[in-house]
């Protein structure tokens, strides 16, 4: 881009807003225009270009030649513009030197093959004379092709070279040289700083979302920020909820004295808390009263700087304070804008890191549930033992959340069968783990299978300490079925009543429950003995069955369960068929609402 044009130059209306301080001016006879990609605007531009050239002293003939050459070049640029190029302006630049005129035209076309020696088409051709005219009208033409824009440079000597002005005095020249020098230095430093900032920003963009080490990333970002803003110190704090506080995240450069670790809004009077609360940048100047926990890291009271609170969406993330040792200039608008841009990146990366942490946590929970359900599945026997004259069927349907239900069936004594069903209160891995412990403990007490009460008492004594230490308990029902005596002996630790149904269809609920396991170490569990004559049924179950809910919220309940067991026409059915029927009955009752608790049961029939 040309620097601001001097007195003789025309600046077109499309030019960007002039900067408030253009800095040193370089005087050149330059003109530029950026008409839209259409014939009309291009024609207006070439008309003004001619006017400008004639104002620079070119003759009417020269003006006419240039006007035609420019119009031809402009028309080509319009006619062959790419689809994207049609939205872009065509750029004209005219430079009138004392000896020659140079014109540059930027087009957005796929580019032309610029012929060295264009020829005229047949006389009655209606097009194809443009390039010939351009080449004929100017002394020199060069065409540079690029990816998205091409440059045409045209040059033509002036008919009458302009008299050079009287040689400037040595002082004037020196002054001019200095002016140019200052302008160049200015431009170079601006360019260098923009380049640095851009490079840094590209690097940050690449790192966003990679989930690298956050502190490391932030350290590099803040280090760069110090460089591009020319600040001496930086302090980054992060906002934490419950209780609300600003925690020190990092200070830069490394080795700076450490300011207070934690600031509490409302309690600490400080710039950082105020900035976060008001959501505005706060400037502090040398000599301003130092509050508690000021951002200045270990400097004296003479500090100047800015504290910038940052947010992602609406959520406060933290503050970044930039500090300069006193007596320096305040931060410029450009530096503040760099601060904002850099900190936006930091905010995104911090939020990313936090989201990643939450996601990892969720994955861990999911994995734990998976492990728990695997443990639970391993608890259940692969197949029920064949133990005539008893016929068994069992089911364990797990609800969404893994609980600690299990059952077990073991042959015992002389033609006897030992059954246990349990529900460990608690969820996840700990509950599944205790269920597993409980099952193994029961298996070890084989000698007590014929004495369910003593077995529970012993089990409770052994496990009570462990269970109560982790605030867990378990309800357990054990039953010993004696084929020779046709009886069932049962004991319960806080478990749902056992249901027994005679061959005649009379159901009985056995409510002999003592405390659940793991409540009182000294609990003594009683046994109840009932007849289990041939053709009778027994049902051991967890409360998932009785607490199954109809859509209106009514519980399935013990009575309904007992009535189901005692259905006269079902008493002769095989156990597996009745198991299926019970599952269907429960599902019908829930009418499709999902299980809220595990449904586990053992169904046994005395069938000699």
């Amino acid at each position, binding site marked *: 881009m040309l620097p601001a044009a001097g007195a003789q130059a025309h600046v077109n209306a499309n030019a960007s807003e002039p900067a408030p301080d253009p800095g040193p001016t370089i005087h050149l006879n330059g003109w530029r225009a950026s008409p839209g990609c259409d*014939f*009309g605007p*291009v*024609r207006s531009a070439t008309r003004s270009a001619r006017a400008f050239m004639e104002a620079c002293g070119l003759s009417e003939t020269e003006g*006419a030649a240039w*006007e*035609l050459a420019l*119009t*031809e070049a402009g*028309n080509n640029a*319009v*006619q062959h513009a790419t689809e994207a190029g049609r939205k872009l302006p065509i750029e004209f630049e005219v430079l009138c030197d004392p000896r020659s005129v140079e014109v540059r035209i930027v087009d957005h076309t796929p580019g032309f093959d610029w012929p060295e020696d264009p020829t*005229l088409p047949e*006389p*009655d*051709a*209606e*097009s*194809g*004379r*443009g390039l*010939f*005219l351009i080449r*004929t009208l100017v002394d020199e033409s060069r065409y540079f092709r690029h990816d998205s824009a091409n440059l045409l440079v045209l040059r033509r000597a002036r008919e009458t070279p302009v008299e050079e002005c009287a040689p400037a005095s040595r002082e004037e020249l020196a002054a001019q040289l200095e002016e140019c020098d200052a302008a160049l230095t200015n431009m170079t430093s601006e360019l260098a700083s923009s380049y640095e900032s851009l490079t840094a920003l590209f690097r940050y963009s690449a790192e966003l979302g990679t989930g690298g080490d956050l502190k490391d990333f932030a350290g590099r970002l803040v280090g760069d920020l110090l460089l591009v803003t020319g600040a001496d110190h930086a302090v980054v704090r992060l906002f934490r909820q419950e209780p609300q506080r600003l925690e020190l995240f990092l200070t830069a450069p490394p080795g700076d004295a450490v300011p207070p670790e934690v600031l509490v809004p409302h309690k600490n009077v400080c710039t950082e808390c105020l900035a976060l609360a008001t959501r505005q940048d706060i400037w502090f100047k040398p000599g301003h009263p130092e509050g508690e926990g000021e951002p200045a890291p270990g400097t004296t009271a003479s500090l100047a700087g800015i504290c910038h609170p940052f947010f992602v969406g609406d959520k406060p993330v933290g503050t970044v304070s930039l500090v300069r040792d006193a007596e320096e200039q305040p931060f410029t608008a450009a530096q503040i804008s760099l601060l904002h841009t850099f900190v936006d990146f930091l905010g995104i990366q911090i939020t990313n890191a936090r989201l990643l942490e939450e996601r990892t946590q969720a994955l861990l929970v999911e994995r734990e549930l998976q492990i728990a359900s695997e443990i639970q599945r391993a608890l259940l026997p692969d197949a029920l033992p064949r133990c005539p004259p008893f016929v068994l069927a069992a089911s364990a349907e797990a609800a969404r959340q893994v609980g600690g239900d299990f059952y077990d069936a073991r042959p015992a004594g002389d033609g006897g069968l030992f059954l246990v069903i349990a529900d460990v209160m608690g969820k996840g891995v700990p509950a599944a783990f205790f269920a597993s412990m409980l099952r193994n403990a029961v298996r070890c007490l084989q000698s007590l299978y014929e004495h369910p009460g003593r077995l529970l008492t012993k089990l409770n004594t052994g496990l009570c300490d462990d269970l109560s230490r982790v605030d867990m308990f378990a309800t357990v029902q054990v039953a010993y079925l004696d084929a020779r005596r046709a009886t069932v002996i049962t004991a319960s630790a806080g478990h749902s009543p056992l249901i027994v149904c005679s061959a005649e269809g009379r159901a009985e609920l056995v409510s002999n429950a003592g405390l659940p396991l793991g409540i009182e170490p000294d609990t003594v569990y009683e046994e109840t003995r009932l007849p289990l004559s041939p053709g009778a049924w027994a049902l051991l179950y967890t409360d998932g069955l009785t607490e199954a809910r109809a859509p209106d919220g009514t519980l399935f309940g013990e009575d309904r369960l007992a009535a189901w067991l005692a259905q006269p026409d079902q008493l002769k059915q095989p156990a597996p068929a009745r198991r299926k029927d019970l599952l269907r009955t429960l599902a019908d009752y829930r009418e499709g609402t999902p299980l809220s608790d595990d449904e586990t049961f053992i169904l046994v029939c005395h069938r000699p």
Partner: protein
Amino acid sequence: MKTQNLDAQTVRVTELPEVTAANATEVRDGVRAAITPTCRILQMDLSQTAFLDSSGLGALVGLHKTLRQQDGVLQILHPTPAVAQLLELTRLHRLFEIVEK
């Protein structure tokens, strides 16, 4: 642009400040519409035409062809120096009948 039928065989076009890519198609089609089947001479009065580009030349060539199809000619009346130079530069002064002032 103004078109007049001077007689059954002659159509004259006047008041053309410039013919460029921006208006060449419009000028050509406008003139064609004014040419009657009996027309044998199309007079393009370029005495006020300060600027003509290659698209303007294309329009003139197009009209020339239209006239030739009906055994007519295109005459260019009183071209300005700029236009005359352009016609020579592109050697079209041999194609058209040019009537100098």
